[in-house]
């Protein structure tokens, strides 16, 4: 591990701890807006942020919290936006699902499934017309690939020879249904092969590994003027047990949006699951980092920001 790797690991912890703090505020009912937290998305979001150079563009979805936090590395501008304060990242005007940070390349986020694909093709086309040699990165979930716009836009990116990374976060869920509950499997490798688009799969949540791979793919995409489709396995953490009259024995609720009672900051533990599905567990396992000490320093920094 080198010094920059340490910074990557800190970046992962920042995204985790910022979300933990947002979740606590959420539980206290401080937000009027819906927020889709991205516990478990820290490695891919930090890796994407780390490979972005100069004028690269990032096009996100409604579940953009981890990516925006990874880019800005501060809590206050994001939190203030969520609180609809004028000091927020977008002047407190647009809430969470469309959060933007144009200065850092986040020029579009969409709450409509599949809506951001077509916009991303336009963004990438503009880069070509303006003779820029950078890349457009598009994020979407496994739900969005059910939309026709996914097919349309990948075809357009390929036909127009536009440098782009299309990253599909496969968390197996679309709101309350698993993939197997709602559709036949889509083999993204075969799908991309049908358009002669390179496919790559990321899994395991090791941010250093992700960064290396994404850097390579970024270079290849720019050099070959082609889109590359990347499927990344993520687990959106924060599931919880609902107990009520209808479910006296408790029912497991998959996390989609809102505050999750399944994650608590007061536990003093920044790891949510002691498994590879949790990026913070993975960085602790794979690296010589004192999660507790580094995490507490970040927590203090963010709490100072919030005062």
């Amino acid at each position, binding site marked *: 591990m080198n010094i920059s790797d340490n910074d990557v690991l800190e970046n992962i912890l920042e995204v985790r701890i910022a979300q933990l703090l947002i979740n606590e505020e959420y539980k206290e009912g401080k937000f009027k807006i819906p927020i889709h937290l991205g516990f478990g998305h820290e490695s891919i979001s930090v890796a994407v942020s780390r490979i972005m150079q100069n004028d690269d*563009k990032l096009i996100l979805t409604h579940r953009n919290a981890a990516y925006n936090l990874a880019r800005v590395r501060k809590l206050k501008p994001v939190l203030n936006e969520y609180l609809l304060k004028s000091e927020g990242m*977008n002047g407190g*005007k*647009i809430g969470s699902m*469309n959060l*933007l940070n144009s200065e850092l390349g986040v*020029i*579009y986020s*969409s*709450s*409509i499934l599949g*809506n*951001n*694909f*077509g*916009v*991303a*093709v*336009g*963004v*990438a*086309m*503009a*880069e070509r*017309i*303006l*003779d820029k040699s950078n890349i457009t990165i598009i994020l979407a979930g496994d739900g969005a690939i059910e939309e*026709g*716009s996914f097919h*349309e*836009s990948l*075809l*357009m990116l390929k*036909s*127009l020879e536009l440098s782009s990374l299309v990253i599909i976060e496969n968390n197996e869920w679309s709101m309350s249904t698993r993939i197997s509950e709602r559709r036949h499997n889509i083999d993204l490798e075969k799908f991309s092969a049908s358009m002669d688009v390179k496919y790559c799969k990321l899994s395991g949540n090791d941010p250093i590994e992700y960064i290396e791979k994404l850097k390579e793919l970024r270079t290849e995409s720019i050099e070959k003027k082609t889109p590359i489709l990347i499927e990344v396995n993520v687990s959106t953490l924060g599931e919880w047990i609902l107990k009520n009259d209808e479910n006296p024995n408790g029912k497991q609720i998959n996390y989609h949006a809102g505050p999750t009672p399944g994650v608590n900051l007061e536990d003093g533990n920044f790891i949510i699951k002691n498994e590879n599905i949790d990026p913070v567990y993975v960085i602790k396992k794979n690296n010589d980092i004192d999660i507790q000490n580094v995490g507490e320093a970040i927590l203090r920094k963010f709490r100072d920001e919030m005062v």
Partner: protein
Amino acid sequence: MKYLNFINEQIRSTIEKNDNLVLFGQNISAGSCLGGLTKNLKVNENSKIINSTNSENSLCGFGFGMMMNNVSSVFFMKQLDFLLLGIDHLVNTYNIIRSVKKDLKSSFTIMPIIVDNGFQGPQSSFNNFGDICSIARIQGYVISTKFEAKEIISKKLFSPGFRIIGLSQRLFKEEIMDLEPVYSNDNLSLIQYKQGKDVTIVCFNFSLKHGLELSEECEKEEISSSLFNVTSVTPISWDKILLDAKKTNNLVIIDDSKSENLSCDNLASYIAQNDVINTTIVKKVIDENWLGANSDQMEIDMANIIKKIRN
């Protein structure tokens, strides 16, 4: 000159004056080039013409994405029906852009042909331009005359921001009306072509030709008319029309769109709220065969309207 040729000429001359453009749409530089609309398009070296895929939804997002990233574009569309596939972008994408991107330097214009000649059957006959525009308060223009073609295309095609400019297929092969305006508002959404003292005629959608015919029939009866064309369906000030109608005390409103909520209804309700003026509204008769392969032409009973004006 024919309507189609004149519009093609205006598009080409406006394009030549602009750089960093993307012109796109299905077969815009192949085959008939959308019936001639996009024939002989030429762009500068740093611009591009794309015979696009058949991906209307993504193509709408494509235009918005380029606009956000400082490149202006025009999406030429063979028929308005295709735009139904892009409504998500017209509403959701456009809403984001106009709420946060206040300093746009680029444009996105969609130029659909409105298939209003009829005989298409249940599909491909979506003559409801106002509905598309009102769905998200989109600036939408229709072009009927030489003046409108020159002014709207030269000033709006690449003006920063988004708009839709609708063209009438029914008028393609007809001589384009050459009328000198006596008034035009700054936004080119209200054009007045005649000033009279007995009746105020206001035309919506592509009904100006009917309005002009009515005006000429009135003249034969020694009734002088003011003639207005409303070229845009976004909210505009009706005061100019109200003032004129108060003087003539006779208002004829004509709208040849097939919508259930006509753009002209907005003016009619405004007039009703403000003054009692003898008002006649002329619109399409939508009978039980409206889904069939019928003519989309509006029939106007000139004699009856003139009789009403006289009363």
